[in-house]
């Protein structure tokens, strides 16, 4: 739906090739495109203005390197400016020196506070080995307290027993008391959703803060939020003194400009990202990834990192090239099934590519069952090297032999071969999409050049 900024700027700036330093009037033309791209990504207008001014200052007079186009040069400057503004790589939630400490979760209705509360509780319990208590102060939304209780059971985290008729401030006090007596490290306070323009409810949450004296006050905001993000962020920050932001529904296809808006108006770090409805779908924040996403460059950096984590650099390059061309053979498949599994399975890997939504549909249709990967490995191991290179030669009798050899059935062998063909076809499509977008030269790890095409 959106052209990536690189393509757009290419159109505006490519005529400037080999003209040396960027001049003011060239930059002006580019900045109009930058402005539109940021607005389409839902970055709030005042924030866009600031960013554009910063980019302009950095860009004018800048020598364009020989190896890249002026368009790419500007994209890099924009990207770096966004990363700078987003700031705060991987800042984690503070833990109390003198337990129990409270973490207060606030935000608009339906932004994801309750789910995030439970996700954070699970994270603190499992990763930091903290004893965590959750309490729901939401007496407004029907069954909200029940919701947190169920999530607590799922996460194996204690919740404060519900006392009917108590007001939020009373519940907060009771929670802190229970935290002290129960020897808890952290008390997570989930609150009712409220509009920042609702004076009475903003007063109420301020009173809760005064009662609980939280170590952290986290604004939970939806990644799909539009221009209002600045008003919401500012109002909650002015009133409560936020310490951090959690962005939810990052698993959607929103460009996520709200991250920039909120960060810019509150000055608070974005601490965590919600990436799904399940309780383990909470991730650390990486400014370069969000910057790439806002600019419509797909989450190529994450992909690069994930690949780098699990596969040797050279293998990654080969895999990337083959994946993109749809030239994988069964040898590669066997070798890489294992690595793919480590990277969160095919769907995990696919999810990181640009144009995710469409591919996900196709992926669902391709019906790649990740749990039977092991049996598939066995099947491939029962093939001859020749068969692995040229799967087309595997006819009926060979299929029977392979099935017997691997302790599987002929239908399973058939299925593997069919899936393999589908996957290859699909990858060819990704490769084509990549050519238009970011994956031009595959996606080898490029340390220091996050989200940039290989030519940088």
């Amino acid at each position, binding site marked *: 739906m959106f052209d990536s900024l690189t393509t757009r700027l290419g159109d505006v700036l490519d005529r400037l090739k080999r003209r040396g330093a960027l001049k003011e009037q060239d930059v002006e033309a580019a900045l109009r495109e930058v402005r539109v791209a940021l607005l389409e990504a839902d970055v709030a207008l005042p924030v866009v203005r600031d960013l554009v001014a910063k980019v302009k200052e950095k860009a004018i007079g800048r020598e364009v390197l020989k190896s890249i186009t002026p368009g790419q040069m500007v994209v890099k400057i924009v990207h770096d400016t966004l990363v700078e503004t987003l700031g705060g790589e991987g800042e984690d939630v503070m833990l109390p020196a003198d337990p129990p400490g409270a973490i207060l979760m606030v935000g608009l209705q339906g932004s994801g506070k309750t789910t995030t509360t439970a996700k954070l509780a699970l994270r603190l319990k499992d990763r930091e080995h903290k004893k965590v208590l959750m309490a729901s102060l939401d007496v407004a939304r029907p069954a*909200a307290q*029940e919701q947190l209780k169920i999530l607590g059971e799922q996460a194996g985290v204690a919740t404060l027993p519900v006392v009917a008729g108590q007001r939020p401030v009373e519940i907060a006090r009771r929670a802190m008391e229970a935290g002290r007596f129960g020897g808890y490290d952290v008390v997570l306070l989930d609150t009712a959703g409220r509009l920042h323009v609702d004076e009475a409810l903003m007063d109420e949450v301020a009173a809760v803060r005064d009662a609980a004296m939280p170590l952290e006050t986290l604004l939970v905001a939806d990644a799909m939020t539009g221009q209002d993000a600045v008003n919401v962020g500012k109002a909650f920050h002015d009133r409560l003194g936020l310490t951090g932001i959690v962005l939810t529904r990052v698993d959607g296809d929103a460009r996520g400009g709200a991250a920039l808006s909120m960060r810019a108006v509150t000055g608070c770090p974005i601490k965590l990202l919600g990436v799904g409805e399940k309780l383990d779908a909470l991730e650390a924040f990486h400014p370069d990834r969000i910057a790439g996403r806002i600019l419509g460059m797909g989450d190529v950096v994450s992909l690069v990192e994930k690949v780098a984590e699990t596969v040797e650099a050279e293998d990654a390059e080969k895999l990337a090239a083959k994946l993109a061309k749809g030239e994988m053979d069964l040898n590669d498949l066997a070798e890489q099934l294992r690595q793919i599994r480590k990277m969160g399975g095919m769907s995990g890997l696919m999810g990181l590519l640009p144009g995710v939504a469409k591919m996900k549909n196709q992926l*669902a249709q391709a019906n790649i069952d990740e749990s039977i990967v092991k049996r598939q490995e066995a099947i491939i191991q029962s093939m001859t090297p020749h068969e692995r290179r040229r799967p087309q030669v595997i006819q009926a009798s060979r299929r029977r032999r392979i099935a017997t050899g691997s302790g599987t059935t002929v239908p399973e062998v058939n299925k593997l071969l069919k899936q393999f063909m589908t996957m290859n076809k699909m990858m060819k499509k990704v490769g084509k999409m990549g050519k238009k977008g970011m994956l031009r030269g595959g996606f080898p790890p490029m340390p220091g050049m996050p989200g940039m095409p290989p030519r940088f």
Partner: protein
Amino acid sequence: MSGQGWLGRLRAGLSKSSNRIVDGISSVFTRRKLDEEAIEGLEEVLIAADVGPATAAKLAGKIADTRFEKDVTPEAVRRALASEIAAILAPVAKPVGIDPAKKPHVILVIGVNGTGKTTTIGKLAKAMRDDGKRVVLAAGDTFRAAAVEQLKIWGERSGCPVISRPQGADSAGLAYDALQQAQRDNADVLLIDTAGRLHNKANLMAELEKVARVLKKLDPEAPQDCLLVLDATTGQNALSQVSTFREMLPITGLVVTKLDGSAKGGVLVALAEKFAIPIRAVGVGEGADDLKPFDADAFARGLMGLEA
């Protein structure tokens, strides 16, 4: 034909057109176009209301071609733009209509997470009950914790029975049961809640399609309505939501919630131009009575920051 003779009508017609000519000529001399700064200002008002840069530029372009009196006030200019916008929105402002021949008229309520589906069902149920209709609710969100309990409370508030199954049950199966039950009870309306889902999740979207498919086994025309609930706080992603959900199910209407906040919901203008899907109602609060018909004029004035 009116009592006015043909000569009278001709005269009236002529004077209308000559007035127009006179107007046109005088405007060239006495009226002016807005300066660039003013146009840019208007464009920014639109962008800040989530209209989106492309639609904002288009609307501002239109106003740039309009000639105004020399002493026109900024407010009058904004009012002119508001009426442009109202004209785009007026054709899609259509409340939900219930087919009385259907027992029941089935309304499936869908949308991304947390937009206000369940609350909207509660509000609709209340309004329809007040209107004397027999309404049945189906707790089709079998995924989210306490979603069933939430709808049950709305059922009590509105005095409507709620058909449910335990959390984790198949939502299509539940929808089937509910329609069967509503048919047996000779209900007027069946409102089906669904779990919130992001439109880019193919498996969850397929599940939704299954709900619609299963309903057709009992009534080939069901669901008669499929309402997509959008949160006014959402920015340009609403376009992606509508276009993807629409590929899956025939969306017959939109409901926009949380317009009681400071978000203006301007993306509706782009949606109206692109998809022309009727806007059925707006949510303006958390209470049972906080659902209002969509008023194109008032909405457009709100976008432009004018008093309602």
